């Protein structure tokens, strides 16, 4: 009954075309972020938001205002995030949220292009000699209570006709501590999570993350349903980040391409008009994003890449030209 009520309320929301005007009038962009996930959206010691999700908020702010500081970050937990978007408390949700069919269709929101392709994986001790998740038959696996990871791992074991001994804890800290202390053979959560946990261990080199990815977690920004103009802006801002990397443009060298004869670059940087007008933004919006923030690769490396504490390889998040999934439609 309650659910029906919420759904009825959700489906009645129509904000067509109003979001961009509202943002411009208000003078800032309200961006929903997490309550603190290192690498994605996390406050540093000075209280400034940092992370790849946060950088995406900045990219949008640059696209709209030409300035990265016009963002108001709204910290949201898992339960609040969709309501906040629905009720107009935020303009865009950039908060490590997995795009799924149910969420996309029934919660009154639209997911744009994934910012990060994640997936669930396993970590084991190196000395166990295990090299594939298929060898985990009968293994005890530490996992967190009530999460989708718990569900995924039991699905995976059942599908592969393996015996699972789940060791379930309430908090993530307990899960990790138990694994380190040898309470279980394997630890499972999203690959990015495993990598960041491993980076905190005293002896990270004693642990390996198995290659199998057992679930798909495309983490994508989301906007309210019913405002296609704003949806396009969010979607194409993400594409601009990818396209810039593909064209070899980054925050340091973009000015040296000002005289480039390449028509793709001329269009992308707004020197041949088109990319701004058709989306309702300044012609130089893509140039500004690259100049003031950087391309996708730069953002990735700064926040979660090999030299960050999370030490995540690009993997699925490489450009399509490098065998990854990051692919932008042409800017023309």
């Amino acid at each position, binding site marked *: 009954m309650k659910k029906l009520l919420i759904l009825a309320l959700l489906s009645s929301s129509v904000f067509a075309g109003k979001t961009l005007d509202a943002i411009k009038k208000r003078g800032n962009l309200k961006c929903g972020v997490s309550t603190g996930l290192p690498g994605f959206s996390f406050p540093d010691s000075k*209280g400034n938001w940092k992370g790849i999700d946060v950088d995406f908020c900045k990219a949008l702010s640059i696209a709209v205002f030409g300035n990265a500081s016009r963002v108001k970050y709204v910290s949201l937990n898992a339960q609040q995030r969709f309501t906040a978007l629905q009720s107009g408390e935020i303009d865009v949700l950039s908060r490590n949220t997995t795009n799924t069919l149910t969420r996309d269709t029934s919660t009154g929101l639209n997911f744009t292009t994934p910012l990060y392709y994640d997936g669930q994986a396993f970590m084991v001790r190196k000395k166990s000699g295990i090299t594939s998740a298929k060898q985990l038959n009968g293994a005890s696996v530490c996992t967190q209570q009530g999460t989708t990871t718990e569900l995924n791992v039991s699905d995976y074991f059942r599908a592969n006709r393996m015996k699972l001994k789940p060791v379930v804890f309430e908090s993530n800290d307990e899960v990790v501590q138990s694994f380190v202390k040898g309470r279980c053979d394997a630890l499972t959560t999203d690959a990015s999570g495993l990598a960041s946990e491993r980076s905190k261990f005293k002896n990270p080199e004693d642990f390996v993350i198995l290659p199998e990815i057992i679930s798909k977690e495309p983490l994508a920004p989301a906007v309210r349903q019913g405002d296609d103009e704003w949806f396009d802006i969010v979607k194409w801002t993400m594409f601009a980040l990818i396209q810039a990397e593909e064209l070899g443009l980054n925050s340091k060298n973009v000015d040296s391409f000002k005289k480039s004869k390449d028509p793709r670059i001329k269009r992308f940087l707004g020197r041949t008009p088109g990319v701004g007008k058709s989306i309702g933004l300044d012609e130089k919006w893509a140039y500004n994003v690259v100049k003031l923030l950087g391309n996708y690769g730069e953002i990735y490396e700064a926040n979660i890449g090999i030299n960050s504490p999370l030490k995540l390889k690009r993997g699925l998040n490489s450009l399509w030209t490098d065998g990854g999934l990051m692919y932008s439609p042409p800017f023309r």
Partner: protein
Amino acid sequence: MIQSFINDFPKWLKKNLFNTPVNSVISIFILALLWKAIEKIFLWLLVNSVWTGTAATCRQADGFCFPFLFEKVRFIIYGFYPDGQLWRPTLAMLLLFGTLFYSRIPERWTKKLVYTWFGFFTLFFWLMRGGLGLPIVTNDKWGGLPLTLMLATIGIIFSYPLGIVLALLRRSNLKILKTLSVLYIELIRGVPLISVLFMSSVMFPLFLPEGVNFDKLLRAQIAIILFVSAYMAEVIRGGLASIDKGQYEAAHTLGLSYFDTMRLIIVPQAIRIVIPPTVNTAIGMFKDTSLVLIIALFDLLNTTKTALRDPEWLGFSLEAYVFVGLIYFVFCYVMSKYSQGLESEFGMKER
């Protein structure tokens, strides 16, 4: 006094701990156990503690990691408040302490005090929010200790008059008002604070017309006030019930109206009686504000938890929790001591 303590201590020991052989053995055993426990804390806090260095230095050592605290104390206390403006929440908190200190003496509980608090809140919000010459800091950036203090102080101060009204309504002879008050109090007391906060943050925005937005912090603050007022009402009702019937009758004989009877005779006495349970509620309330972390407000406990998640400074939860635990303890202890002082003062007057 110290001299007499030193003189009497051996005697006291002999009389209480070592008066029979069996007791002596038990005493020694317990003292040894105590030392075992204290030794660890002592070593951890003082001997092995690390004062300078990085997370790596701390991980090598086995003691309290002060560098962690030095690095994170700014975020734990002030949250997202912009650097360079930190004097504002600091001053706001000092003002709060000053106003509380000024209000501690019952003789000052007059109309003037209401104006004082009104003035204080004006200043407090001006400092926190800005405007009139100060840069604006929107309330999504408020956090840490100022936020906790604000939620608790406003929650307690505003719930008190609301509680008095609810308590009076519950004791009134008008059936409708009484029923409404009972319904409200029992409904609120029947659900946990978490669910009230959740309603305010997740459900409530859905019921508003489109485009209308109610500030998140304000919603939480109102939820807290509504929640505490139900508890305050019950506390005050207890006080009202304990007032002798003769007091009502005497007031009646003097020809006082209902409002004057309540205002001048019944309520002041009732409030005096219920000081201990009121402070009890206030202390509980102060700690309950930490529940706002589930609606993603960055109060003192949430900033602490967030600071702990920093990948560069992982694994110093003991340090962080000892630190905030101490802050919570100091505030609650002061409240408790103050209420004891008030009790004895009022007790003395009545006798």
